[in-house]
């Protein structure tokens, strides 16, 4: 994990160092005197050779102090703390709702495999996956929010409960609907893999009914890959769905980084990229450790 982390830091550093624009020009603007530019260069350490700059960069990462945003002068660390709650308010319900909808649907179509129902649902899934997420959001926001008025079109408040009850339901619903198709397809294949195994044949041979086989035997075993897949989705919870946050003006981390890209706010982009990569690695590591407890056959190297 340490070499990978070093690689991530190097990649981000060199990407911005050699391919990015000159920070002093971005900061000083179009009309700036040479003294101003020089002052900024000194302040950011840009007059030093690149290995010294890399050292500064690493020190910033380790000390959790990325300084201030170039454009809004807000502390980068406070951006994390203030934006993450909004992101989590919508991503965690999305994750739970998707799993709660996709697993029963997948089980149902796997039970009726090969029939008209199965084929219809699968065809709908392929078609649903071909429509852009953007179209779902645009149409959903227009029809459910604007025309029918069931949900507020957009907005956010300071109270967690008010957000969860008033503002979050529409984005959560739309994202869960979009996630349903690919997850149903995937989980169906997990269920189908299990129905071919020997223990299912044994269960049939001893006269168990098909629903009982599905519920007692197949479900339990198929849940292992399902849970693996859900755990793979967990890191995404922190990145959030930036599209939803932009459309519904939710002050989350995804929207923040999109805004940072638009105003070339390098410290914010770098900090978010590095810390979220570290978080992703930690979550994956935790998942691996958990597996070795749950399934003794899996050994950590």
């Amino acid at each position, binding site marked *: 994990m340490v070499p*990978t982390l070093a690689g991530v830091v190097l990649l981000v550093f060199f990407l911005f160092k050699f*391919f990015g624009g000159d920070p002093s020009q971005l900061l000083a603007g179009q009309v700036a005197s040479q003294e101003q530019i020089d002052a900024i260069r000194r302040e950011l350490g840009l007059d030093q050779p690149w290995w010294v700059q890399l050292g500064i960069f690493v020190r910033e990462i380790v000390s959790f102090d990325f300084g201030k945003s170039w454009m809004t002068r807000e502390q980068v660390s406070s951006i994390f703390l203030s934006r993450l709650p909004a992101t989590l308010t919508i991503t965690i319900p999305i994750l739970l709702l998707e799993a709660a909808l996709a697993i029963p649907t997948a089980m149902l179509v796997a039970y009726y495999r090969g029939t008209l129902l199965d084929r219809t649902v699968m065809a709908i899934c392929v078609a649903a996956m071909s429509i852009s997420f953007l179209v779902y959001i645009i149409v959903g926001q227009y029809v459910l929010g604007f025309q029918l008025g069931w949900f507020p079109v957009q907005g956010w408040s300071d109270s967690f409960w008010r957000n969860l009850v008033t503002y979050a339901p529409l984005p959560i619903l739309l994202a869960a609907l979009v996630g349903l198709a690919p997850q149903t397809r995937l989980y169906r294949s997990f269920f189908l893999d299990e129905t071919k195994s020997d223990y299912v044949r044994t269960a049939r041979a001893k006269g168990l009914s098909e629903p009982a086989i599905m519920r007692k035997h197949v479900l339990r075993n198929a849940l292992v890959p399902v849970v693996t897949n859900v755990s793979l989705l967990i890191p995404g919870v922190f990145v959030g769905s930036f599209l939803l946050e932009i459309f519904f003006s939710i002050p989350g981390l995804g929207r923040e980084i999109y805004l940072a890209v638009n105003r070339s706010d390098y410290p914010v982009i770098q900090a978010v990229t590095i810390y979220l990569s570290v978080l992703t690695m930690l979550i994956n590591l935790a998942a691996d450790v958990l597996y070795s407890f749950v399934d003794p056959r899996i050994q950590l190297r």
Partner: protein
Amino acid sequence: MAAVLEVTPENAWTALWRRLQQDRVGALCLGIVVAYLVMILFAAAGWLARGWSEEVGVPYANPGFLGDRPNLEAALQKGSQHKGVAPDLRNVDPLAPKYEEWAKRTGELKGTEAERSLTLPWGGDRWGRDVLDKAIKGSQVSIAVGVVAALCATLIGTLLGALAGFYGRWVNDGLEWLYNVFTSIPSILLIFSLAAVLRTGAFAHLFASGIWTVVIILAFTGWTGMYRLVRAEYMKHRSREYVLAAQAIGASAASRMFVHILPNVSHVILVQLSLLVVAFIKVEVILSFLGLGVPVDMVSWGTMLSEAQTELVIGKWWQLAAASVFMAIFLTAFSMLTDSLRDALDPKLR
């Protein structure tokens, strides 16, 4: 004397063609994809949708089948052109003596403005451009970006995967490290970082056309899946008998990698390539929607959707419908074709 085998083995690609023909859904999807390709070739050659950027209709012209729908926006604009008399400033304006000359010169320049039609086959956008033409031209841009980016990602992934899988040892270790670095950064953050760097960076002027920025972003972030698959295949194949035989007759490493092994793993690459095309088109649409993709003087499904968002609020739904339908049909057909392709290339999977 050994008996000579009379039957020549069926070529893999003829077998693929035969199996695809038996698969009716696959054949239909192939037909749709070919139709799209012909359409974008015509559009690229300028035989189709050449005038997509010309303002041929009134603003928000109605679709042909909804001709008598009230069009408030066009009426408003028409009204504002003829009403409103400029106040007389002759006494205070220091430039007053020039009025005569200007009037003369405007008179000379007065061109004939083409008559704008009230309806267009599938409606018009804010500037009165034909939405159907835009959708055709947008298909060209979106599909071309998706395909070119997928080819670039495939090239990177295949090359690195072949090296790692074939040589193993330290080459493999190094490339695995690179793979881990790229996959541990959430892909959307990598895309955003690249977008931020490429639009302001030292090489920004190189990609002035803007379209290459999207291709680079997609190729740079999307090669990892291909790398993993190709690497696994090469690890499997490198000690197979046919490769050892090639080595025994003196085939070089490069020749074994790309002449002997590559054709035998090409089916894996082809399927993954088509999956990449679908994924990349979706990402391109989102990037263009956000203004990080194709430049403003071009049209793609994404830029159409970003215009459609504001149009929908005033009830002009046709641009949204055109972009969504063109995109959905292509991606559905392409995804199902990929499924058929996988089944046809690997009959054991069925």
